């Protein structure tokens, strides 16, 4: 048992090393994992469930782990048929971190990390749970708020810098760091896809999406407190943004866009009938692809890094970290690239969809192209 503790400590040290060089999701991960291992070891002597550990770190949580046994218990907000209810998530667990029933308007219990209504004997009440709206400030929501706060502070202060130094002087400090990114979004994403004239209207939307995804991607790579949550790798987050893109695209779509979907010009009528449902499906697959792409990329990155660290626990030797940690660092570096790339791709595709929806078709040119 003491040998196991020593190993755990060594692993934590190794992981800390990894942390110092690259932002990866590990210090708490490995310690938590180690704790999990200890718990498991107590239960089944050395049995370590990799899938469970990894999923636990990727999933949302009601508490935000800081260090050791310290974590922030985030508020739970529930809406049931009896109205709203707010209480600390601390009440969901006992001193041994085992889930317990909380008695509010209903009896609540965490089942697989989700708040559910249970009956008197502690079993899931599926029918009542369907009436439950869980609007809790979870780890992801809190992390999202942190990213919103960071964005507001950084961008409002750089906006103030323009007012202070005037237009004619070169940007300084934070402002000079943000300006190339903003220009990048404008010159490489918005203008080539939407066109210089119309892009101005969509710039705030595209910039907000880009910076929100970028910030959350980076925060997700930081393994300890303000980061550590997997916001941009959460399907709810990507779905919300994809729905926003869907709404903006379809609200800004012009007549010719709809015409091209329902009654493709320059085609035989039978072809038109055939194409209409395909094009209509395309309207929905575009945002869905946005949603899945971002979610899958970020989640995959996190799973990769976690799997590499889990190698240490699978092999049950600290020497496995000699391979696992360099690989994790390497994947971490790639994740840095992916964090930027995915924010770029999401914004790029959103801009492209907006561009397609607002494009003015020159009919002659189109008819010519249609015959090819």
């Amino acid at each position, binding site marked *: 048992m003491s040998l196991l503790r020593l190993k755990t400590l060594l692993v934590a040290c190794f992981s800390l090393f990894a942390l110092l060089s690259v932002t990866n999701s590990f210090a708490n991960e490995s310690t938590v994992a180690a704790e999990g291992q200890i718990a498991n070891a107590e239960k089944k002597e050395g049995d370590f469930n990799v899938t469970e550990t990894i*999923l636990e770190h*990727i*999933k*949302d949580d009601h508490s935000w782990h800081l260090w050791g046994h310290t974590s922030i218990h985030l508020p739970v*907000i529930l809406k049931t048929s009896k109205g709203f209810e707010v209480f600390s998530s601390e009440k969901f667990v006992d001193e041994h971190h085992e889930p317990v029933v909380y008695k509010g308007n209903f009896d609540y219990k965490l089942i*697989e*990390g*989700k708040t559910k209504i249970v009956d008197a004997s502690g079993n899931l009440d599926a029918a009542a749970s369907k009436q439950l*709206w*869980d*609007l*809790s*400030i*979870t780890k*992801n*929501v809190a992390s*999202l*708020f942190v990213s*919103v706060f960071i*964005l*507001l502070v950084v*961008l*409002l202060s*750089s*906006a103030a810098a*323009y*007012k202070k130094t005037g*237009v*004619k002087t070169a940007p300084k400090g934070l402002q000079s760091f*943000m*300006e190339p990114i*903003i*220009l990048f979004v*404008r010159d490489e994403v918005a203008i080539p896809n939407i066109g210089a004239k119309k892009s*101005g209207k969509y*710039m*705030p*939307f595209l*910039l*907000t999406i880009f*910076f*929100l995804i970028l910030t959350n991607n980076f925060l997700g790579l930081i393994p300890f407190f303000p980061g550590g949550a997997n916001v941009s790798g*959460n*399907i*709810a*987050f990507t*779905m*919300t*943004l994809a729905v*926003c893109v869907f709404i903006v695209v379809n609200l800004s779509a012009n007549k010719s866009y709809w015409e091209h979907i329902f009654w493709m010009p320059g085609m035989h009528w039978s072809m038109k009938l055939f194409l209409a449902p395909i094009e209509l499906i395309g309207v929905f697959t575009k945002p869905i692809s946005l949603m899945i792409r971002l*979610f899958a990329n970020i*989640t995959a990155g996190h799973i990769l890094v976690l799997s590499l660290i889990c190698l240490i626990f699978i092999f049950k030797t600290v020497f496995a970290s000699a391979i696992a940690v360099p690989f994790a660092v390497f994947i971490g570096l790639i994740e840095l690239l992916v964090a930027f790339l995915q924010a770029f791709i999401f914004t790029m595709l959103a801009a492209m969809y907006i561009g397609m929806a607002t494009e003015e078709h020159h009919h002659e040119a189109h008819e010519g192209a249609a015959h090819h």
Partner: protein
Amino acid sequence: MLLEINPLVLPDIGLVFWNTIAFLVLLIVLGKFAWKPILKAIHDRESGIEEALLKADKMKAEITAMQNENEALLAKAREERAILIKEAKEASEKMVAEAKDKAKAEYDRILADAQLAITQQKNAALIDVKNQVGSLVIEVAEKVLRKELSNKAEQEGYIKQLADGVKLN
């Protein structure tokens, strides 16, 4: 259901709700207080730079035009100078030629005068000589007449002698 197989692909309504609020807040606040002033500032700066460049180009064109004008003026001045020099040269040459002509004419006149004077003096001298010859003839005739009066024979011989002498002359 397929979606319920993996909780990872099951979106939580809580996060959707908060994310929508967060995104809208960001969009509105940043749109109004960050993106708008930043994009406007960048746009203003870009148009300022563009304007300055255009102005610089215009200035450049103006300078080139001025240079061309200067060169044209210089060329014109050079041409005028050449013409002036040429004219001056011509004038001086003309003057020199005129002076030469005048001098020649004067010389010719003086020469003519001198020749005339010489001719006159020569004529005068000739007249003088003729006069003297006349008086000599008269003198000789006088002497001959006197001799005739004294001796007839001798007179005749003398006349003959004179006559011979005149013939010799």
